[in-house]
């Protein structure tokens, strides 16, 4: 509690500088931030989204429960659909914010 930990996303688009601390980046784009709280494994959204398309990520977990309308081990069309969602990173701001402007 009250532990001071600094962080930023790797590859931050907003032009926010990295705070003090020791950072290193793996080839995969993973940021390991060494903070007063210890080293943590940090991934930004863009990197996580990129991992979505790796082959292993596309196979259903072996013991996925079959809950009708919620999960399906063979829900290929769902997978396809989600993979087709355009990456928000490409056009940040406008499109997203427009969807928030009415009310929340």
């Amino acid at each position: 509690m009250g532990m001071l930990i600094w962080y930023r996303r790797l590859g931050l688009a907003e032009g926010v500088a990295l705070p003090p601390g020791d950072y290193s980046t793996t080839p995969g784009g993973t940021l390991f931030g060494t903070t007063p709280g210890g080293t943590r494994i940090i991934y930004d959204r863009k990197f996580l989204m990129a991992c979505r398309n790796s082959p292993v990520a596309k196979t259903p977990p072996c013991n996925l429960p079959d809950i009708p309308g919620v999960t399906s081990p063979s829900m290929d069309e769902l997978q396809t659909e989600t993979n087709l969602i355009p990456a928000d990173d490409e056009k940040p701001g406008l499109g997203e914010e427009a969807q928030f402007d009415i009310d929340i």
Partner: protein
Amino acid sequence: MNNKFDATYSPPSHSHSPVSLKDDDSGDHDQNEENSTQKDGEKEKNDKDKPQSSIKRKAVVPGPAEHPLQYNYTFWYSRRTPGRPTSSQSYEQNIKQIGTFASVEQFWRFYSHMVRPGDLTGHSDFHLFKEGIKPMWEDDANKNGGKWIIRLRKGLASRCWENLILAMLGEQFMVGEEICGAVVSVRFQEDIISIWNKTASDQATTARIRDTLRRVLNLPPNTIMEYKTHTDSIKAWEEFHGLVNSSGR
């Protein structure tokens, strides 16, 4: 809190269903500790091997070329039984463990084979909590905690949920061990996302979580965000449940 809650409202053998909650209590799962039945989901698949949660508990680890996460997480799903009032049975049947993962790739394996929240029907919730933390107020990790709540008009839940959990899995909140999990609650007229942390009284932490939420969800400045302690949630539940109880449960 746990004891008080149970002592006041629940015989030890009972679980409470969130169905008695109003929508603003979304994401709260006020059952008590007999949640071993939450393993139903995995039991269905695994009881040929082992009937209990040992399957999940035993070493979910990243695969060889996978990207490890800071923590393991477990997906849960719950759904209100239509037209059915609170009962321990209904709650126990309502919450299911979907599975636990340890890497980014394993996360996607689950996520890509689950419907998106916006496509859920009825009164449903997805929960994503650190492995070992039950999505309920009374869990040791939650009992002194609280949550940020953001109400979303229909149509936003899927993307907000995705952004929320990606931020959580990627350790974007930077509040040490404070994050417990996240919930998306699909309701009749709105959807609600929330993120739970351990220490409601830690204002530096809750402020940082709030700020991170604003950033990762791309929320406009006027978005209303409400922080609610689980203690208050329990009180609200108690009051509401008192009403329900008067007509019998």
